[in-house]
């Protein structure tokens, strides 16, 4: 690369351009929150200089679940069935531990039909970025309420929702997730930084991103609308992803900034904004969510972070060579060993 000062270098550290991270043209509604998240994924992968073929993209079914087709054409993708992406991701990561898994789901896909698998993938700590594009409705089936819809909310088509919303961040924390963040598709910078942090996190990183459905749930009164998000977003902290921990520049008062080191060098730097929140404390995280629910604030940022848990790849003690690529010599024991085993049977 030349030393000419350009706003952003055209090629990243692995020699790829931004366009190398593109997907197919989206077929979602113009303005759909999901599309802006896809753009952020493209940004983050480009900025982290991830090679596309090292990524796998996974999803369930829904408008949100279509979006893996709209980023990173160079990565293998799998659009599974409704609500079962977590188990498919689990199997894929066991088969090839070296891939970076990016899963995209919806609030229906995760919170309704997928609730059981969601809880269990979190419990197993499968290393992946688990994005919930949360719009409070089932977009693809035309606007029914999902399990995260506001209690008492009325929509022209879906009527009135009588049930309280599930809080998917709280669900993730209770189930044992080590990285839980809430964000807003309208907050491009935060989503990008969160994604970079999540992609660098060891273990499952759950991102519950409010992603407005402009066609079915973008009413001012809906907590999942653009206007509501814009008016009520309260970022807990200003997030900066730092590729190398030692590069962290202490521009701020030490008390104002928390830096969380991630396992392989990078860190996230959190500069306190509105709230006093300790993102490494589970109860404080739950309290934050509970308070936000009461106040109606859209509190965004890293709700909880703790990288200490082992991932399933570690607990299963999986071979360094991806299971998918092991040679026959390691997959089929010797003829003698079979004779030996059969001694047990006489």
């Amino acid at each position, binding site marked *: 690369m030349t030393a000419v000062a350009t706003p952003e270098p055209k090629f990243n550290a692995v020699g790829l351009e931004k366009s190398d991270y593109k997907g197919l043209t989206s077929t979602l509604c113009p303005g759909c929150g999901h599309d802006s998240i896809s753009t952020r994924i493209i940004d983050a992968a480009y900025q982290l200089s991830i090679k596309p073929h090292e990524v796998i993209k996974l999803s369930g079914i829904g408008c949100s679940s279509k979006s893996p087709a709209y980023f990173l054409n160079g990565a293998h993708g*799998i659009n599974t069935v409704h609500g079962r992406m977590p188990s498919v991701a689990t199997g894929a990561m066991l088969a090839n531990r070296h891939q970076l898994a990016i899963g995209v789901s919806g609030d229906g896909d995760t919170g309704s039909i997928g609730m059981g698998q969601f809880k269990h993938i979190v419990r197993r700590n499968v290393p992946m970025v688990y994005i919930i594009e949360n719009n409070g409705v089932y977009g693809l089936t035309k606007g029914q309420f999902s399990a995260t819809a506001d209690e008492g909310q009325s929509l022209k088509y879906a009527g009135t929702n009588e049930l309280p919303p599930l809080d998917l961040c709280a669900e993730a924390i209770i189930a044992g997730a080590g990285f839980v963040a809430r964000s807003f598709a309208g907050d491009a910078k935060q989503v990008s930084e969160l994604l970079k942090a999540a992609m660098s996190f060891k273990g499952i990183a759950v991102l519950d991103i409010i992603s407005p459905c402009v066609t079915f749930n973008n009413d001012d009164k809906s907590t999942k609308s653009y206007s509501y998000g814009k008016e009520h977003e309260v970022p807990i902290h200003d997030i900066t992803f730092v590729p190398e921990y030692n590069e962290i520049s202490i521009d701020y008062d030490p008390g104002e900034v928390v830096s969380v080191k991630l396992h392989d060098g990078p860190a996230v730097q959190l500069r306190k904004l509105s709230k006093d929140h300790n993102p490494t404390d589970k109860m404080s995280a739950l309290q934050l969510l509970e308070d936000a629910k009461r106040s109606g604030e859209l509190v965004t940022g890293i709700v909880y972070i703790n990288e200490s848990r082992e991932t399933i790849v570690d607990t299963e003690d999986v071979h360094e060579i991806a299971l998918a690529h092991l040679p026959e010599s390691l997959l089929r024991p010797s003829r003698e060993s079979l004779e030996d085993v059969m001694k047990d*049977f006489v």
Partner: protein
Amino acid sequence: MTQLAERPSAGSDRATIVNDFTINVATVNGSGSQTANATIVNALFHMGIPVNAKNLFPSNIKGLPTWYNIRASKDGFTARRDTAEVMVAFNAKTIQQDLADLPSGGVMLYPDHLKFEQNRSDVSYYALPANAIMKLHNVDVKFRDRMINMVYVGALAQILGMEMQEVHNYLSKTFGGRAKLVDPNFNIAKSAFEHCEQNIVKSDPFRLERMDGNKDKIMVDGNTAAALGAVYGGVGVVAWYPITPATSLADGLTDFLPRLRKDPATGKATFAIVQAEDELAAIGMLVGAGWAGARAMTSTCGPGISLMSELAGYAYFAEIPLVIWNVQRMGPSTGLPTRVSQGDLLATYYLSHGDTKHVVLLPKDPKECFEFGWRSFDIADQLQTPVFVNSDLDIGMNLWMSDRFEYPTEPMKRGKVLSADDVKALGNTFARYRDEDGTGVGPRTLPGTDALGAAYFTRGTGHTDTATYSERPGDWQNNLIRLDRKHEYARTLVPAPEIHSAGSKLGIIAMGSADPAILEGRAILEALGLTTDYMRVRALPFSTEVREFIAAHDELLVVELNQHGQLAILLRTEYPELATRIKSIAHCDGLPLSGEFVAARVTKNQTVLTSKEVNA
């Protein structure tokens, strides 16, 4: 010690019956009779007597009646028999009925503290002082329930002529030679033996005698065999959820994989085993692993098969290899979880909505479980599709006398997987679902393949042959037609039927664990002067030999262990022009078929039984 069998038989004027009768041990489940029963089976086996065992246990953990049938058969028949001549009646709750179930001339061994009415004069009663023997040996109350069963082991040894040395051998083996465990058990058996020697006058004709019938045989259950086969088949990811009778297959993997499949260089696992949260998750994990390129399998049964329905259809349509062991139990619904059936043939063949059709393998015994254990992966990889292996509770959980397992005869077949270099050689492009060779199978790449153009998008929705989304009618239809072509190709890859030709125009057709009953039934019929041919179907879809066999016979009797005659249904469906020759003999009461049953039903069959009549 003197084996009673060595003494001249007293008090019975009937001809001695050697190595050809069945022992039925009636106990309470959870009381720990497994060791005692296994001792008997193994002692017989090591005496060279062909033996087999059927465990009839209840669906609970402790306290309900359970029966263990041990058959000695000098002629090598291993089917269940409808009657047992020697009853070990150790369950107070069933003792009266157990007595009633004995055939005339039968034998009844029982602990002398059990009260019942000796209302039959045509059987021999042998009372055993079980409590006295336990007291003699001062057994800790904690182990009492379990060890009292050694009383009948010793008694049977003395009365029937089972060798005490073999009893000792087995106990030594099973307790890893630890005298602290071996001795107390053996001593109880010995006391019982001695009691019988001194006090019992043998009045029955049954005897066991060493012979040489088991050369090169092993004793093993099908689930263990299947697990071992999978280990040698290179299984990578196992995901499963506990369910009887499939659990012990996963247990086998949990035992053997760490033993046989850790990389000696690094000590690292070349496998991963996950106990999933349910069967939907289990198959989901297989889909992920199979897609990413590892050999993936699960073991389950009926309820799990039903739950896997949606993702099984996905894997069929998205063309992802994986292997599902369906160790069949009795359905519908929860049914009888500890009883056998062959009732999932239709369910697995047609599993999922909308024109899905699967490959199903049908092993008959542990040896074939071992073989299909590895071969199923080759077939799944070559066809890029789920492969079901329909074993059953009888094969899977009972101890079978089996031929030794054969080490895989061929190197692994991984199917059409393109490497990065392959993709580059194709000009950085490939068509995932294009059928270049008429097999219906296209090439695939694995995630992580480092070549431009190697990535593709997998989905359960309509697509072109380059894996792009499409709703075009022509694209859809071409894809389904290609999948049907693949189904035709599958016929050539799956195991062909096993055919026993004796030149008869009457053919018997069966599958899986019905085999021993068919073999014995044919022998009975042969003795009666009725020669039959026999085809054992080993897979769906049927290979060409299946049709040929049917076409070559005037009448075909399809004998199977389910309610609706499912194999007969599929054969008629496949060969409408031969449908009228195909008659169904379906039976469904939870017990393995017996040779007597087969012979009786074949004899009786003179009229055409259509599926409707069978169902009526």
